Every structure is written in C-alpha cells, then in structure tokens.
C-alpha cells in the first residue's frame, strides 16, 4: 500500500498516463517504426526485410518520380502559402475598414475554412468538370476559351487548378488571424503618423506591416506545415496525375505503399517529409513557447 504522500506524488503522472500512452502508441511508435522501415528493404514479398542502411535514400536521389514529387511539393507549398498570405492580408485589411455590415462579411468569408476539405474537393471537381462544368461555361461565355478544357486531366492546367483550390481554402484562416492582429494595433499610432503628415501608404509600411511581423511569421510557418502535409485535395482531385504532374510527396508515399507495396521505399519518402517538417516545427515551437 502506498502512503498518502507517495500517492499524491504519483497523481500527476497517473492523470497524464492515458494521454501519454495513446500518444506513444499512435504517434511516437509509428514514427519510430516508419524510420526503422526506411532502413530495410521491406516490400510485399520480403515481409521480414534486411537492414540496408541508407540505401533507400540513395535510391531516392536517382528516382525521377521522387524528384518530380519533391519539386512539385516545394512548388505547391510555396505558391499556396504565398497566395494565401497575400490574399488573406488583403482581405484582412478590407475587413478592418470601418464600414457597415462588415461583420456579415467576416462571417461569410469563413465558409471555405469550415467546409471539410474532402467535401470541398468534390465540389471543385464538379466546377472543373470538362463537360457541364461551370468554369468552362463561364470562360466560354466570356470568350476566354473556345473549347472545353479538361482542367484536372491536362498537364499544363492540373497543378494550377489544384493550387487555386489550396489558396481558396486557406484565405479565411490567414485573414481572421491577421484581422485580430490589425485590430490590436493602437489607434494612436496612426493618428500620430497622420499629424506628422504620413499618407495611407506610408502608415501601412511604417505602422501596419511592422506590427504584423510576429504574427505573420507564425501564420506562414503554420500554413507551410499544413500545406506541405496536404493529401486530401490532391488525392481527390487528380490522384497525383495526369502522369505525376500533381504528384506530391504525400500522395507519392501513399501510392508507393498502398498500390505499389514498396513499404520501405514509401517509408523513406515519408522520412524525408518528417525531416523537413521537424525543422519547421522547431521554428514554430520556439516562437510559440
């Protein structure tokens, strides 16, 4: 029997135990197994797998589809993060203006964020449809295109089509976070600047932007992590196609594992993702603690 004192010393750990066990079993253990698997040559036929060190990673460096997926992922992440940030900032500045009905707009613009991404992806697939799709109809009636475009099945347009949806989805989050920061800038700073004869643009550059610096950094790191990880949208819209044109590291990993059954190779790609993400996470955690 434990004494009262010993028990109260153990109590904090007892309360934490279920949480920690689950995190260990469902988050930490798989990551360790994943890293270990990436060092074997395990596939569907050799379930045991021999230890091969870093050979899978060396093979990755010569694998054209991996390099393509890596390039696509960087391109996708960079473009979507930049697009979300610039448009989100514009929207935040508009919402920060003192006009009637702005609360209605603030509520309406949340829709892309609150709709489940997988569901939104299905809706966009219908918008992009080659036949009967509304996008082709609009562009045709505006005279911008003559013939229907297969947006998601065409090499030149597929990546941009997915990127557009990615940006669309993320604008509201960026906008409302930046809006909160804009509203916390003291009014006096602007008034003082106006008395000193500063114009709108000057106030924006010298007051607004510096005040947004800290929060912008966090927003950009977070959206980079999320978009780097993104899977649902690409999987539903294009499955990484046509011909790997929209293949990301996430969809490539999934395909290697669940369709090609190259377990170790898939794990190696995922470990590459892990390394990148952990670097970003260190930046995020140091900022936020």
């Amino acid at each position: 029997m434990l004494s009262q004192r010993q028990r109260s010393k153990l109590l904090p750990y007892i309360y934490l135990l279920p949480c920690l066990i689950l995190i260990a079993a469902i988050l930490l253990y798989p990551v360790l197994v994943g890293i270990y698997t990436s060092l074997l040559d395990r596939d569907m036929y050799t379930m045991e797998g021999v230890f091969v060190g870093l050979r899978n990673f060396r093979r990755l460096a010569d694998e054209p589809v991996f390099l393509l997926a890596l390039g696509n992922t960087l391109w996708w992440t960079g473009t979507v993060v930049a697009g979300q940030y610039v448009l989100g900032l514009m929207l935040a500045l508009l919402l920060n203006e003192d006009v009637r009905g702005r609360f209605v707009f603030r509520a309406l613009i949340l829709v892309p964020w609150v709709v489940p991404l997988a569901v939104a992806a299905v809706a966009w697939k219908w918008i992009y449809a080659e036949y009967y799709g509304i996008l082709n109809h609009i562009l045709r009636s505006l005279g911008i295109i003559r013939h229907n475009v297969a947006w998601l099945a065409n090499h030149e347009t597929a990546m941009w089509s997915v990127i557009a949806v990615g940006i669309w989805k993320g604008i509201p989050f960026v906008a409302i976070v930046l809006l909160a920061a804009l509203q916390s800038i003291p009014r006096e700073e602007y008034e003082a600047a106006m008395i000193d004869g500063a114009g709108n643009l000057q106030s924006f550059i010298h007051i607004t932007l510096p005040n947004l610096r800290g929060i912008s950094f966090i927003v950009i790191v977070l959206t980079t992590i999320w978009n780097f990880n993104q899977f649902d949208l690409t999987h539903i819209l294009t499955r990484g196609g046509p011909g790997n044109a929209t293949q990301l590291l996430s969809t490539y990993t999934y395909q290697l594992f669940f369709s090609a059954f190259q377990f170790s190779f898939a794990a190696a790609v995922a470990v590459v993702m892990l390394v990148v993400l952990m670097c970003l996470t260190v930046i995020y955690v140091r900022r936020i603690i």
Partner: protein
Amino acid sequence: MIGNRRTKRLKTAGVYLGLIAFSAVLLFPFLWMISTSLKPDHEVFTQVPRWIPQEPTLDNYRNLLTRTSYPTYFRNSILVSVITTLAAVVIASFAGYSLSRFRFRGRRGVGILILVVQMFPAVLLVIPLFTLMQQLGLLNTHLSLIIAYGTFALPFSTWMLKGYFDTIPTALEESALIDGCTRTQALRQIVLPLAAPGLVTVALFSFVLAWQEYLFALAFTRTEPMRTLTVGLALMQGQHGRISWGEIMAGAFIACIPAVLIFTFLQRYLVQGFTQGAVKG
C-alpha cells in the same frame, strides 16, 4: 472639405467592392453545390447551366437517402465522431488538469512533446499504423478510426484545457480537498463544471477533426458498410456510369452542415489556440 468627403465615399465604395468580390469567390463553390443539388438531371447536364434551378426539386436528396449507401456513411461518421469526442474530452481533461495544477519532473518535456507530435506528417503515421491495426485485427473497423482520431485530437485538446484550467482559481478545490474530497472528486465536481466552456470547445474540435478526416478513413476502411462520409462521398463519383453530380452535391451539402455549424462557433478559439502568445508582443 467636400473633396475629402468624396474621397471617403469613394474609399467606402472600394472597400465594399473588394469585400463583395472576395465573398463571391470564397462562397461560390458552396453556393454552386447547393444550386446543383436542387436541380433535376436535365438541368445539371446541360451546355448552358443556370445559376439558379429553374424547377427546384428535392429528388437528389430523396435518391441519395434511399438508393445509395449515403445513410450508412452518415451513420458511421456520426458514430465515429461522437465516440472520438467523448474519449478525447475525458482523457484530455485529466492530462490538462495535471499539466495545469501540478509541478512535477518532466512537465515541460510533456508540454513540448504535445506540441511537436501535432506536426508529424500524416502519411508517415498511416503506414505503420496500417500495419499495427492489421496485426491487432482492427483493420476495417470503426474502432481503428476512433483510436487514431482520439489520439490526434489529444494534443490540441490537452493544451487548450490546460490553458483553461489555468484561469480557474485554485481556492475552491483546495477547500474541497481540506474537507476530505479526493483529487478526482474535486476535479469532477468543482473544476470540470467551471471549465464547461473549455470542454465544449474541445468537444467540438474533436468532433470536427473526426468528421472531416479523409486519409486514415481511406486507408483503414475497406468495405462499403464501414466507410465514413468523406471517403464515401469521394468514391461515389466512380460508382455508376454517369456521375450523378446532383446527388453527390446533395451529399456534400449534408456533410457540410455539422461542420459549418460547429466551426462557426469554434473558429475564435482555434485561432487563439494555434497562435497563443504570438499576438502579445
């Protein structure tokens, strides 16, 4: 002075124009979803689509609920999301309370661990977890999803509840402890009722997390009767020869409703949670 007023009016007009343009683009897919869902087939499949249904009908909804597996998907999603929520709230309450009230060895380490595991790439987890679930015989069960989602919800929930408990004064529990309550009684009878808003937030967060998840549902569920909404909906496109977009959009709209309702309430806390401490300086 008049010139000044005119520029001001011009500026207001510009702001409205901008806000309307943004709202139109951001809302469009959602509105188009609703519009399509209310159209009869001959209006869906036409070369010159109309924005608003000419002969609005609920046929798509009726077919969806009677002739497809959609009701099963919906039931599965509700079941998985509700159990996930209950599990996450209970476990995160204890963990958050521990981090908030006790000073013990490794406390800071646990805090950092909880932040870091949130960032693990999902595709790296899904591979070993698939194997693990296979070994445990849990593949193609809802339990596998509940275990996974419950755990994914824990880091944010624990962090959020710890923050909430921090704001509740300790005096009440302390007097209860002196009166002979055990810690767990004090937590259940005094702290948790006071933390109700925090608990609601965490519950809604967990529910939405489970409701909208796609990757793990895709990997773990293999048969029609087990599928959840997101995967069921995404795979509906391939089922019968011509894609019945009217029905799919009806299904998409129904799937949106719980998420939209919950998120509208939740977004304020989510923004706070993810950027805590960032706005201060």
